[in-house]
């Protein structure tokens, strides 16, 4: 990549000169007025710009908006704590761009971010968007820290600017299955048959493929494997098929709207499974779902991104989120953590320069984020230390039940019969 960079365009000067200007956060004030006009600049305090590239409109608007809120909370917290100390207490400044839930728009938005002079950016909730944006960002040597981007293709392209802080689908699935195996062993292997319900987009279909390969390895038979489009208007058929197959366990992998309809329909059709265990499922770790469909939500488990609830900073985030009348979802948490990671790397790089920041990120051993991860270790842009955790809905709350060292409650598996 970097070889290509030097011979970029017939006018290498404009390209490199641009990089230079773009790379130095202090010189950027001149640019900011003309392009993208972000937040108000304070005259004296030095600032470092950080991009937030999220789908604020379109299908993924919910996740994108939540993630933006999380990132803003993090920036607030870091600035309140004195900013980047190695840069003279430089404040972080957000440059927000909308990926509109479209890969081409996400790619184009990277230009805006680069022009505004960001040192790195976070994004973009969906793998398809992240794939497009990181490719575009590679041209600028601009680091993208993936908040969510589970498809393994993200880290398989050899791009030096890609940093996936959170676990990918392989890691999530294997952790989820290990945990499931343990849970089942503790419950004397009551679960023998499984029905999988997945959305047929990149995330769900990938998941279903993996599950079909690996569930038999832990002694479970897949009796139904049902894909559906997003949006799906009616789940009656799907639930009837599940009902007919009588699985012990249901594994849903879909987005919030569809999950909600599925849960409602399962209850309407009186389907009784021994457990509902989703992997990266939107709803089982969504407090709104817990609030609005409390009955249907009880004892549902999820293996998902989640913060370490015991850390003081996590508790502060939970409070901030509640004060802002937002729902505390994993999108907020991971975006928060990604900004923390960038701030730490800036601290070590002691420079807002893009290339230096990439080096700092690549060598990061950061362990202070709100996520329950060990010291960061990027291999080909994949954070090997990242891991998902298991949550379970209990009463009005989402409790963390696995792994033990972070748990706030004991897992209940299988769920007690209703009635």
């Amino acid at each position: 990549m970097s070889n290509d960079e030097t011979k970029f365009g017939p006018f290498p000067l404009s390209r490199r000169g641009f990089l230079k200007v773009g790379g130095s956060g202090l010189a950027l004030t001149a640019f900011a007025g003309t392009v993208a006009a972000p937040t108000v600049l304070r005259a004296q305090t030095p600032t470092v710009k950080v991009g937030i590239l999220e789908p604020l409109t379109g299908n993924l608007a919910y996740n994108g908006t939540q993630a933006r809120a999380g990132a803003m909370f993090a920036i607030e917290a870091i600035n309140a704590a004195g900013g980047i100390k190695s840069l003279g207490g430089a404040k972080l400044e957000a440059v927000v761009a909308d990926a509109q839930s479209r890969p081409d728009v996400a790619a184009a938005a990277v230009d805006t971010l680069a022009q505004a002079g960001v040192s790195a950016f976070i994004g973009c909730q969906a793998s398809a968007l992240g794939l497009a944006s990181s490719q575009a960002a590679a041209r600028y040597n601009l680091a993208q820290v993936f908040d969510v981007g589970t498809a393994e293709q993200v880290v398989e392209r050899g791009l030096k600017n890609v940093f996936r802080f959170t676990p990918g689908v392989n890691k999530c699935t294997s952790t989820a299955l290990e945990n499931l195996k343990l849970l089942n062993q503790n419950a004397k292997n009551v679960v023998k048959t499984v029905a999988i319900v997945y959305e047929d987009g990149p995330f769900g279909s990938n998941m279903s493929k993996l599950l079909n390969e690996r569930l038999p390895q832990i002694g479970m038979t897949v009796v139904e494997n049902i894909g559906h489009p997003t949006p799906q208007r009616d789940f009656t058929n799907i639930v009837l098929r599940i009902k007919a197959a009588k699985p012990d366990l249901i594994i849903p992998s879909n987005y919030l709207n569809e999950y909600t309809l599925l849960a409602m329909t399962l209850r309407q059709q009186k389907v009784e499974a021994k457990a509902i265990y989703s992997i990266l499922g939107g709803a089982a770790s969504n407090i709104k779902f817990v609030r609005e469909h409390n009955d249907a939500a009880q004892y549902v488990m999820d293996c998902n991104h989640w913060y370490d609830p015991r850390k003081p900073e996590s508790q502060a985030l939970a409070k901030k989120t509640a004060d802002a009348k937002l729902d505390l979802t994993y999108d907020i948490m991971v975006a928060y953590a990604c900004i923390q990671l960038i701030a730490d790397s800036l601290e070590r790089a002691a420079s807002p320069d893009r290339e230096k920041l990439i080096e700092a990120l690549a060598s990061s051993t950061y362990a202070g984020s709100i996520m329950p991860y060990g010291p960061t270790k990027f291999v080909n842009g994949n954070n090997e230390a990242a891991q998902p955790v298991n949550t379970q809905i209990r009463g009005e709350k989402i409790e963390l039940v696995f792994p033990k060292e972070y748990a706030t409650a004991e897992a209940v598996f299988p769920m007690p019969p209703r009635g």
Partner: protein
Amino acid sequence: MWSLVLPAILGGLTTGAIYALVALGLTLIYGVLHIINFAHGSLLMLALYGVYFLYAILGIDPYLALLIVVPVFFVLGYVLQRGVISVFSLGKEQNVLLVTLALAIIIDNLALYFWTSDTRTISLPYAYTMVEIGPAFIPLPRVIAFVAALVAAVILWLIMSRTRLGKAIRAVAIEKRGAELVGIDVDHTYAMCFGIGTACVAAAACLLLPTFYVTPQVGYAFVLVAFTTVVLGGMGSFMGALVSGLLLGVIEALCGLFLGESLGQIGIFLAFILILLFRPSGLFGRRAA
């Protein structure tokens, strides 16, 4: 699989009733104004929010909300047609289509701005009350929606065939100049049509929300199926919209059952293409003279 066929058909019929309700309004607008109303889905979304907020803030039951939402949306539709669509389209057909497209963009994104993209649902105790019909359990709200679709189609049919307004609407639909010459106010009639069509969508929203959700994007889930329903039923035919809505619900359910939900969607569009090719006037429409 075969034991699921009957429940799937019954389930499909209730889904189809919702399609029919959404399509009833559209068929009126399409049949009379001859326009593809792209804002139809957005208006459904708007109505769903209306029903949601009436429940969430004032505690008004969605079925009671019919009495508020339907008249309000009638007025909204009337004003939209008379004050916005006809003004900005200059009465040109291809422009009308683009104006409604622009309207859809505006409405959807205003909703996104004001209400964010949160998924909102309401939890009603009777959403889980099941009616046992043969081998199938049907949620009570779906049964109500099914009956309501029948009632709505009959009411619309009565309005169109028995009232002075209905005659004027049918006259304007096919012979605008002739209608003008007997003194029918064409602009007013168009706006009445749009108003009634929008009121239908509002009614659909009241019946849909108890078993569904609302987000700013929710309209898209229905609008294409609604177009299919309208064409399949024959433009401007209420009985056509009703029957074809139900039929599409069943086609979708059966295709989903046998082809899988992903590929199953194709059934609706294949049916649509076949109808367009071989009987463009729809199942119930008259052949063009």
